[in-house]
């Protein structure tokens, strides 16, 4: 699964730590989601999308092989 969190963070100009605080998870979790090592739960994905004020599909995208 691909995600555009890094791009969205740059647009909104926040760090991983700040995003982590906004969605109430640890910075490690945001880091592993961004690097594609971990697929977040639906609730977390919705929370992340809400921080950036965009839809979930704009942040997370299914890949071939998912």
């Amino acid at each position, binding site marked *: 699964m691909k995600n555009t969190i890094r791009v969205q963070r740059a647009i909104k100009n926040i760090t991983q730590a700040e995003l982590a605080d906004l969605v*109430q*998870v*640890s*910075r*490690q*979790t945001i*880091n*592993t*989601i961004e690097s594609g090592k*971990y697929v*977040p*739960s639906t609730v*977390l994905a919705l929370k992340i999308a809400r921080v950036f004020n965009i839809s979930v599909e704009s942040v997370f995208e299914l890949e071939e092989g998912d």
Partner: protein
Amino acid sequence: MKKGFLLPSVFKPIGWITFLVFLPFAIACLYYNFSIPWLQLYYPENPSTDDYNLTNELAFAGVIIGLLMVVFARLKHEDEFISKLRLESLQWAVVINYAVTLVSLFAFYGMTFFAVLAYNILTILIAFILKFYYSMYILKKNLAREEG
């Protein structure tokens, strides 16, 4: 997030202290025949084979409960990724535990085997602690590396 069945994080130091307090007791009971006289349930007919003194049971129970507390204590900041790490470490610990059991089955026989089997009770807890906290360490290291 639903509350899991993890203990509050204060149980981690309590668990380690309990473990470290009862470990010398257990070693003393096992290798030095240490026993507390008033824990004797009753005096058996055959003292060499029947042991009705509760000291060694208490010592072993203390060791087990100490490690259990460390295993089930939550971290200061639990979140879903750490829950996943916890589950994976637990699965890994179960496999390692039975690998050790199977190897012991063929490596030790007779009374030695039963002694090894007694130690095997702790293998799953120790394997989990090692795997889980090692994963956390690697995670923090990667994070620090990415930051810098």
